[in-house]
């Protein structure tokens, strides 16, 4: 079981952000149920995801996991 893969539990696309993230809008965040257990809030890279989509972690940037949809 990998803590780098999981399933989207819920997600949103953010259009209005704090100053620190203003340059990124719109961006998608998701709560991911990890295959290794537990959930984590991360960012989505690339294609938009929906609930139940399978995702894999592509990087950790400043402590934040970034996930991408598994085709």
């Amino acid at each position, binding site marked *: 079981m990998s803590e780098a893969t999981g399933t989207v*539990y*819920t*997600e*949103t*696309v*953010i*259009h*209005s*952000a*704090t*100053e*620190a*993230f*203003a340059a*990124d809008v*719109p*961006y998608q*965040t*998701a*709560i991911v149920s990890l295959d290794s257990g537990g*959930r*984590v*809030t*991360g*960012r989505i890279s690339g294609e938009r995801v929906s*609930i139940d989509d399978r995702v894999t972690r592509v990087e950790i940037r*400043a*402590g*934040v*996991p970034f996930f991408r949809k598994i085709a």
Partner: protein
Amino acid sequence: MRPVAVIGIGKTPFGAFHDRDLRSLAVEAGEKCLKNGHTAPTQVDAFFLGNFAGPSFAGQNHLAPYVSTALGIQGVPATRVEAACASSGSAFFHAYTGVASGVYDSVLVVGVEKMTCQPTPRVTEILAGAGDCAGEIKAGSTFASLFAMIARRHMYQFGTTREHLAAVAVKNHANGALNPDAQMRKVITMEQAMAGKPIADPLNLYDCSLISDGAAAVLLAPAERAGEFTGKPVRVLGIAQASDFVALDQKPDITTFPALRRASGKAYRMAGVGPADIQLAELHDCFTIAEIIAIEDLGFAPRGEGGPFTLAGHTARTGDKPINTSGGLKSKGHPVGATGVAQICDLVLQMRCEAGERQVPRHSLGLAQNLGGSGATCVVTILGTV
């Protein structure tokens, strides 16, 4: 424990008041409340201040004595309570325990927030401090986005629709239009509510409460002495506060608020009543989805049915379970730290038959529900005139 009554209420209007600071708002509400409860500042035994982020918004700490001394309340315990958007609900709960236990005979609770002194992105950042800053917030979450993720999951599990969310906003705006103290006295249509500017999908501008300045105050006394101060005392029949995880991703199921369920269960048992007995309620509609889930967690409708229950008109001012006749946080305004006490004030107005155009015919048993963060604190209060 002895019975406790609300003997006085006082509020400022809610809005964007560029010429007012935190203390002047708090003092206005406090003075109106003392006058309403025929009590002198020197008679007050203890002071509680509900405030979320005065230090961040206004750069001022040590806020409780800062406000109490300006009200002429000298020497007694003055304590600030912070529990995010449930700050003054929690202050009210602790004031209640002080009177019920016999430690105090007269307690003033003021809730206040001054938010419009900061630009919106900074307000969003300060509000985000009520989330888990080492996790969800670091990943770019805002409070709107946390409730958007709750809404998405609720839609997925129960079939809740955009129309259900919009129905909450339309109903609360219709009520707020009749409230002279509301920030946005504007009726909106379903079409408008469905087509607002996107904030965090599926939530748009009309799903979000307002950025507001304002204060509210209540005065508590032992019920047996209430008649000395007012002809219209309102009793606290049941009250409870409960807690839960701060981070949304730690909760096993985000479509319900366990702290709300726990607090309401205790409050119902204490009051000896059930959801069907409640005649009107002020619920914490920081986002439209929050009112829908509160309707379910309080037992007003079965799980997953909060949206259809709203769309069918049950929660309208003219319905059988009027909710947020004040306009709610959505239309009345949401000066975060003032909201919990303002809900109590709005219920008391209805229960005293002083709610003007928005007065409902059945008003002897009311419930207020104040939520902090994405559900980490919840306070439920049941008031009665019977």
